[in-house]
């Protein structure tokens, strides 16, 4: 009995905060645009009884999904989002891993301070932190003035309003999400394993490659998911730092919802995005489970 209650809590949570909103979005994605409040039809009219429910379901169709396939804008935006998120995740990993490694190898008494420093930026609003990059990267900004001041460049670099700025923004914003899981994996690692590897004739580099990396694999995977998934649908960073040719699905969604007022198509875009994200994650988890069972 107590167990059932314990299990019911997370399930209810998921049901109320994930499944119900998803069903609402799915339902809107099957509706048609209308100039009304709210701006789509059909509306479920329970006063009509069964006839109303039947009329409601008869009004739903997959037209909006067919529409998405007729315009190459959507596929290009999805692909471009996956590419931007992928490159940004890789960069975050390359920056985040050494930091996490350094933290995990730091003297015990420093670690809480270092952890604090990683988390500290969260105390400022995300929006302000992204906005401040405009001041750093713009052509009259701090970075260009510094580089020109020391004579490294003669002309200001154009970084703001390009994809490079988007990568910088994503790496900066999501870095803690990469560092923390890797740090917690590395911190638990038993250092005597490295000593053993070196005793057995392994160089320090190959010990790192053959022992440390595989042992921190779970942290790397968790970190990559935590960075990749939110950045694929990112809207704030590309709209503040990106150029007008930065094509991301978050911006396309915004335009469908706000400029076209086409909630049904916007919902269809969101449903497809969810599928694109969920299918690889499910496949990945399955292969992980298979690997674990095979290893046993």
């Amino acid at each position: 009995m107590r167990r059932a209650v314990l299990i019911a809590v997370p399930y209810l949570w998921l049901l109320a905060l994930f499944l119900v909103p998803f069903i609402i979005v799915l339902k809107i994605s099957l509706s048609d645009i209308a100039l009304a409040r709210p701006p789509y039809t059909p509306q479920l009219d329970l006063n009509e009884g069964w006839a109303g429910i039947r009329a409601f379901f008869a009004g739903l169709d997959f037209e909006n999904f067919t529409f998405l396939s007729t315009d190459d804008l959507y596929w290009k935006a999805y692909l471009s989002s996956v590419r931007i998120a992928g490159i940004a995740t890789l960069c975050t990993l390359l920056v985040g891993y050494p930091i996490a490694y350094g933290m995990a190898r730091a003297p015990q008494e420093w670690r809480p301070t270092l952890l604090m420093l990683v988390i500290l930026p969260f105390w400022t609003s995300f929006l302000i932190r992204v906005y401040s990059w405009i001041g750093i990267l713009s052509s009259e900004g701090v970075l260009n003035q510094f580089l020109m001041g020391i004579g490294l460049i003669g002309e200001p670099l154009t970084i703001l309003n390009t994809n490079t700025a988007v990568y910088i923004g994503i790496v900066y914003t999501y870095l803690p999400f990469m560092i923390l899981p890797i740090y917690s994996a590395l911190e638990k690692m038993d250092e005597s394993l490295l000593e053993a590897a070196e005793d057995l004739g392994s160089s320090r580099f190959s010990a790192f490659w053959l022992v440390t990396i595989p042992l921190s694999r779970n942290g790397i995977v968790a970190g990559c998911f935590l960075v990749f998934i939110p950045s694929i649908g990112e809207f704030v960073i590309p709209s503040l730092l990106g150029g007008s040719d930065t094509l991301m699905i978050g911006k396309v969604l915004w335009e469908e919802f706000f400029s076209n007022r086409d909630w049904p198509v916007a919902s269809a875009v969101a449903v497809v995005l969810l599928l694109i994200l969920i299918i690889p994650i499910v496949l990945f988890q399955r292969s992980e489970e298979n690997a674990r069972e095979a290893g046993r």
Partner: protein
Amino acid sequence: MTKTLVTITASLALAAGMAAAEEVRVYNWSDYIDESLLEKFEQETGYELIYDVFDSNEVLETKMLAGGSGYDVVVPTGTFLQRQITAGAFQKLDKSKLPNIDNMWDVISDRTAKYDPGNEYSINYMWGTTGLGVNEGKVKEILGEDAPISSWDLIFKPENAEKLADCGIHMLDAPAEMIPAALNYLGEDPDSHDPDVIARAEEVLLPIRPYIQKFHSSEYINALANGDICVAVGWSGDVLQARDRAAEADNGVVIGYYAPDEGAQMWFDQMAIPVDAPNPEGAHAFLNFIMDAQNMAAASNYVYYANGNKAAQEYLAEDVIGDPAIYPSAAALDNTFTTTPFPPRVQRTVTRLWTKIKSGT
């Protein structure tokens, strides 16, 4: 304890949109009023005023279409207002509760009647034009003393845009402003709803696309004021704000606003009462307060936008009523055009065309 409970109950009631009768909730554009007026309203009427701000018509429209916003007064722009009236988002004004409506200026009410026939649902708050914000020194340095700074030629001619590109050109991220401007430049009807005519806007905008640094509807204020860019297509009052910020910073940047010679788009921000406003009585009181000549003049003197109130004009500061960038001459007013909202199918064509212009896709 009882007090806490009362507070909690009160906030719950608020959350449910059942605001207590003595509150008036207003949703207006950011930086768009003299805030001392808000206090004055509370003192004169005894209502408690809750004043929130937004910065895009699209955000307001989404709240209106979703319903249950909890606001008593909102301020959409004309084209958006018209569509929201059709969607049933607003209630008709009870003009018996608006004695100050006689103060309104027929020159403006005649034009707003295009969006709101008979002005039954709304009153004009402010109006302005869309035009060119120019960093005069830099532009003349690049294009010479006779640079066409008051003409769309300045950026719609690719050879000019190319020269200005390094200095920086910003464009409003608003297809409903930029496409009519391009059509007007071509000599087409700027208010055309014919997809084939609208597609012609490409002829103007695609060739200059490589020279546009950014499409954005508010960043240009700072960018102009700091001297980061040379030209921005922007809204009159915003460019004037940039002009004042540059003058305050004393950074040697001189900004000018020009309504294009070819004709400028004129727009109107209208105050209206949502159909589900919790306190329509208070909403009418607020509209009547705003239409008071001295109050309206105070607002315009503060934000540097023109208003639709004839009686207010005698209280306007000289640098407002006397500035042709704010109150254009009668001849300049004749050289303006207005637009009407696109139907959904055409809207999709417009948004798609705009995405193509912005992203090349």
